[in-house]
């Protein structure tokens, strides 16, 4: 590949040493940012005093202050350092702002969940009991945790091998129509609404077992696998594609069979990305409510058997606690938030474990 420089950059200019040319002092961005915030704060304060606005607007201050900063740093840098540096500074500001913006909902969700979830989360029964024979306050989430881990675990066991092998097929073997069809339809599959996946699994098993009221955990796993496979394929495929051909060719040149090349060279090189993809896929399905409501069902009791009877899962638990509240509504809402908190914590732990695994198995180089 070649880097096509923009024509404007190749225009011959009088030689100036850009290394010693005008440069803003090192800490200047920080001071400019603080300055812009102060200015906007002053403006909003004036607005408040003159009673145009009713109250000091902190969010407005931060937002408009940051906008002002972008303008200021661009203008200043343009004057001192030139157009190219100015653009660089502006983009740095924007990219950083994008990151901060994304943190706002994240922090907000985490805080909301933690605050609302803690009261029930720290009750002694929460992790040691199910909801069987519990009315009003008390009760726990053990049956739902078990169900979620079993159902999602089974879905992962089904979809990771299938998804990963398909991705390998697409990048390493696939040519022609089948490969094209798979890539295309995998994308289509991401658009299967989750509730349709549940209905499909339900119809499939109702037909297979001739039982119109069938509900069991494994059916939930199948429904989740339908949702999970495309995400696994899509992300693994992207990661496998990024493995440089030089690595493959070097392995072939040494006489390594293709399948060993894939196993020992291609997969380890991309394992970090693949694991991230699998984690995303798990996170995508572990919170699914609608399909599990239909095929895995709803129960207040423990069930360890994926293959018979209804199985409670955490999202269904959260949804149900939120939707059918009794007179003592607070304890239902508390349990809903605590269930949500548990779910998030489970995914966090899985995520951390996956990263650890990725780090252990991926080859050590560069970044």
């Amino acid at each position: 590949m070649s880097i096509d420089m923009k024509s404007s950059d190749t225009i011959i200019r009088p030689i100036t040493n850009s290394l010693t040319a005008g440069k803003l002092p090192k800490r200047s961005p920080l001071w400019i940012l603080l300055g812009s915030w102060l200015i906007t704060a002053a403006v909003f304060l004036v607005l408040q005093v003159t009673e145009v606005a009713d109250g000091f607007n902190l969010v407005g201050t931060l937002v408009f202050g940051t906008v002002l900063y972008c303008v200021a740093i661009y203008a200043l840098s343009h004057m001192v350092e030139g157009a190219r540096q100015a653009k660089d500074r502006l983009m740095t500001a924007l990219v950083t702002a994008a990151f901060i913006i994304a943190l706002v909902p994240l922090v907000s969700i985490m805080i909301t969940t933690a605050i609302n979830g803690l009261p029930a989360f720290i009750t002694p029964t929460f992790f040691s009991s199910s909801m069987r024979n519990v009315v009003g306050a008390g009760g726990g989430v053990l049956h739902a945790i078990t169900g979620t881990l079993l159902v999602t675990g089974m879905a992962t066991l089904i979809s990771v091998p299938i998804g990963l092998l398909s991705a390998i097929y697409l990048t390493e073997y696939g040519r022609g129509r089948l490969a094209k069809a798979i890539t295309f339809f995998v994308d289509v599959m991401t658009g299967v609404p989750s509730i349709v996946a549940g209905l499909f699994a339900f119809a499939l098993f109702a037909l297979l077992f001739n039982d119109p009221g069938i509900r069991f955990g494994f059916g939930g796993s199948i429904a989740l696998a339908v949702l999970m496979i495309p995400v696994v394929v899509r992300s693994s495929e992207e990661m496998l594609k990024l493995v440089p051909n030089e690595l493959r060719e070097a392995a072939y040149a040494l006489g390594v069979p293709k399948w060993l090349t894939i196993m020992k060279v291609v997969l380890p090189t991309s394992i970090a990305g693949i694991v991230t993809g699998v984690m995303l896929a798990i996170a995508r399905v572990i919170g699914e409510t609608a399909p599990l409501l239909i095929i895995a069902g709803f129960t207040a009791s423990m069930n360890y058997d994926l293959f018979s009877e209804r199985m409670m899962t955490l999202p269904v638990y959260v949804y149900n606690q939120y939707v059918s509240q009794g007179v003592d509504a607070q304890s239902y809402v508390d349990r809903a938030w605590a269930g949500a908190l548990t779910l998030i914590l489970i995914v966090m732990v899985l995520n951390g474990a996956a990263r650890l695994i990725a780090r252990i198995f991926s080859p050590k180089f560069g970044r």
Partner: protein
Amino acid sequence: MTTTVAATTIKARQRPGDRVFSTASVVSGSLILAVLAAVAVFLLVESLPAFVAPDEAFSGETRNFWEYVGPLVFGTVWAAVLALLMAVPIAIGIALFISHFAPRKLAQGLGYLIDLLAAVPSVVFGLWGITVLAPMVRPFYVTLVEWFGWIPLFEGPVSGTGRTILTVAVVLAVMILPIITAICREIFLQTPLLHEEAALALGATRWEMISMAVLPFGRPGIISASMLGLGRALGETMAVAMVLSPSAEVIFQLLTSENPTTIAANIALNFPEAHGVGVNILLATGLILFVVTLVVNMIARAIINSRKAFSGAN
């Protein structure tokens, strides 16, 4: 390509390992097609009665299936596109921040932080949308309508609860951020170091290096990440159902009480009480969503193919 290595003069020995492996990969690839075909057949069979359903099967003034599904298709695409418009630039920004701007030591932790967003189940997004986001943005909407009400998009009367399509789009954008970010980040990190260093050595600023080396390299990945995000936004059920104040009309206004609803949310909301042909009608809307996704993906494919991808593997 890689196969030509063996194909020239020396015939490569077909090892059993190779054969097993390639067969396994073909089988799982085909399995995906089979599953998808099964889902499609299931949907088709179940939706047939809906296409010929009589007037009485539909409530209100809707007379046939197409009148029923039209506004839903609009709402689905509208919400997803709004979400994508917000999410993609921010996701690319975050991915760049993590891969090229943040200090190396910080980057991993930051990536983990964003991945956490993916860990939040959609029910929680729904709860958060109702209890935190909607009340928070309402005053902002009021101001928006006051000042920019003359723009058709922001026309009033403003919603009394803040549970509008714009709020839903924000929730959806937050939901698809981690998917797009995670894939973009991995791709940006895979930019060949030589390209980056070459650009820097030519005197490019960091941004020039990114726009000349990193972004072109990652473009196909960005598009397919966005498509993955779009797929999720189109099919998202619970969060939309919980947050949106829906009605069955085509409405462009972003801030009123009446908003176009999405197919998936509509199924989730009305399935519990559906019976008889009502179930078929809802499943038929599911089929339409399927087709919408198909069309969207075809368009995306066309875009990718028109700017031929370049990546390590070809």
